[in-house]
């Protein structure tokens, strides 16, 4: 997996994410999710580490709330009614009632599974593509230098933003601002104060960085310039991208005509 070109990895994440939204059949989405897990195992994403565990739990809770919200606000009629109740009555008319059918569960699961698929693809991306690889990869395929520089500066900015966040938070604490033992509205207000300072600092940093680039005589638009880190794409990269695009086109076809990708493949060999 490490030997695959960073741009191929990026294309893999992007195209599979779009496919997970396009595929009409839930079984195909489940198989795509299984493929995700294989990728995650192969790239040894440390999903049980402290940082990842927190992110995964937060995402799963958010996903669960979407799943539950679907029960309350969708009124999917289905073959089997599992639960039905009227809640708000105004002028002899029930304006809010909960209806849970087999279709409600199917559609809620459908949305949740697609979101989980995309989330795990993102995890794969964060672990398998370093910021440096991504920039080198993009420059190797002749992506505009100015865009690559902006991406690099964004990564640098994020790293500085993270460091400065802690400094500003500490500075507020030294003036008696509580971040832990306080009410939620107060906490939100305090965090907004931090972000205002950080945004001002970010503007200053951007200004300084761009002055530094210009002072070194590095023009953003220069027709001729060499590339130090050159990662050429190999045959396997082209093959993977070809397969991904083919899969994507076929998914659109399936979305239009209906059907399952997996059954089509099985049908091909039967």
């Amino acid at each position, binding site marked *: 997996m490490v030997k695959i070109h960073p741009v191929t990895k990026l294309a893999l994440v992007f195209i599979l994410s779009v496919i997970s939204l396009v595929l009409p059949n839930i079984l195909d989405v489940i198989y795509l999710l299984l493929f995700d897990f294989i990728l995650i195992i192969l790239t040894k994403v440390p999903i049980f580490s402290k940082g990842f565990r927190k992110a995964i739990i937060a995402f799963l809770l958010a996903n669960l709330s979407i799943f539950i919200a679907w029960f309350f606000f969708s009124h999917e009629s289905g073959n089997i009614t599992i639960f039905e109740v009227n809640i708000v009555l105004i002028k002899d008319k029930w304006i809010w009632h909960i209806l849970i059918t087999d279709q409600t569960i199917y559609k809620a699961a459908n949305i949740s599974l697609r979101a989980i698929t995309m989330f795990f693809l993102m995890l794969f991306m964060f672990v398998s593509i370093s*910021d*440096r690889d991504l*920039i080198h990869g993009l420059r190797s395929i002749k992506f505009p230098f100015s865009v690559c*520089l902006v991406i*690099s*500066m964004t*990564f*640098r900015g994020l*790293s*500085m933003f993270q*460091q*400065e966040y802690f*400094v*500003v938070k*500490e*500075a*507020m*604490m*030294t*003036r*008696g*601002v*509580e971040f832990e*033992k306080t009410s939620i509205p107060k906490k939100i207000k305090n965090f907004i*104060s*931090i972000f*205002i*300072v950080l945004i*001002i*600092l970010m503007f*200053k*940093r951007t200004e*300084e*960085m761009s*002055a*530094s*680039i*210009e*002072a*070194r*005589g*590095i*023009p953003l638009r*220069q027709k*001729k*310039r*060499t*590339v*130090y*880190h*050159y990662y050429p794409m190999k045959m396997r990269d082209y093959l993977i991208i070809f397969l991904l695009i083919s899969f994507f086109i076929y998914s659109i076809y399936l979305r239009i005509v209906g059907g399952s990708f997996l059954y089509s493949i099985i049908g091909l060999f039967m």
Partner: protein
Amino acid sequence: MKPIIEFKDFSWKYKASKDLVLKSINLKIYRNEFIGIMGPTGAGKSTLCSCMNGLIPLRSRGWIKGTVEVSGMDTQKEKMADLGKKVGLVFQDPEAQFVMMTVEDEIAIGLETLCLNREEIRERIDWALKLVGLEGYGNKAPDELSGGQKQRIAIASIMAMRPEILILDEPTSDLDPDGKREIFELLESIRNEFQLTIILVSHETKKIFQFCNRVVILEEGEIKFNGETSQLVQNEVLFKEIGLYYPIDTLNYIQTLENSKCDESQNTPIIEISNLYYTYPNQTEALKNINLKVFHNEFLAIIGKNGSGKTTLIKHFNGLFKPQKGIVRLKNKPITEYSISKISQIIGYCYQNPDHQLFKNTIREEIEYGLKNLKFSNDEIEKRHDEIVDLLDLKKFEEIYKSTFYLSKGVRQRLALASVLVLKPEILIIDEPTTGQDYRMIEEFMKILEELHSHTCTVIIVTHDPRVIAKYSKSVIILDDGELIGKFPTKEFLKDKELQKIAAYTPP
């Protein structure tokens, strides 16, 4: 001989400024000179540097008169990219100069612009890293480097492009004395080796006397002195007139030093640290078995090399860091038993960069922020606001400036101090109060601290500035690689060469 840089009757005013920032500058700089540019804050030093590589007028809007020629090129007619290849500019803050994710990429980005092939780029990177003494650092990320290393990488990335002129705008202000010496020695060696012209903006008078062959002193946009360093060395009057620092004789100075007013034997410690250890998540042992007492009404300087654990130690004083092992007692009670708000009323903490500490839009809001947060009454808030504005002379700025955003760094630092002092802390901790400030501003700021000290406030400063240590602190705490070397009266410290060596202290 033809000058490599020539200012001909050059004046400049920024679009937003009221007055001329540079006034009728006539200046010739020749190949292989090492020129020191000095002057108080706001004298136009950085603007002068920006004029030499075309940042002014090509990147800034304003009014211009006269010309600047660099290597025969008129800066108003050439492209920035062409000027940038001849003139390298290193800024004060090395952090802001990194745009790539590793040292190697940072150096390579400029070389790619010169259209060098991969082999040549590789060779130049290795050469530049060797030049600045950081071989093997190519794959390091900026966050893994110390302040001095970052500044050396900034110089390496410029030197790799082989410029004819190297301009450095206060490159050593964040460094400890060892780091400063390393940078100056590096500049001296590359100047001799490559016949480079070096222009250096600095407040380090002693270093400028030692390394520069010519000095230009600016005041309010005009050249006040332009001549050989030897002509300037004896001219103490000029330094006093402009408000610049003139090196003092430490041995004579020691005689005038007072001993600490604080009698430790009669006192109970206000801060007491026992067997304190602290290790960062990356396994760096920042503090090792620290045992220390700080007494009421002391004026302490915490000193040591970069990375010796000074900031980690003071963050234990005010509970920002919880002791991993050992105890920190504040007024005889473990610090962990205090709330954040209670600590903030006992200990005030000022950061090195005031931008990290100012959250509000106006001076008044900023001063009142902590008080409102601690739910003081409106009358008390008003009373304390008026007191602090008078004490730190902020009234005029409050009337002129609607937003704190437009205040100069010196005033912002004073406001940061006001926002802390308004809570009337018993202990005041200040991290690097003099960084990047001129002599007059440092003196003003330190006088305020002296005044507070005379009103029984305990003052603790973390500093590399030998002038501040010698002139103001009554005792010093020396840290070395996370270990406490000891606490000594300043008078004793200034006589002990061995201690000075450990603390990377060079006499002012």
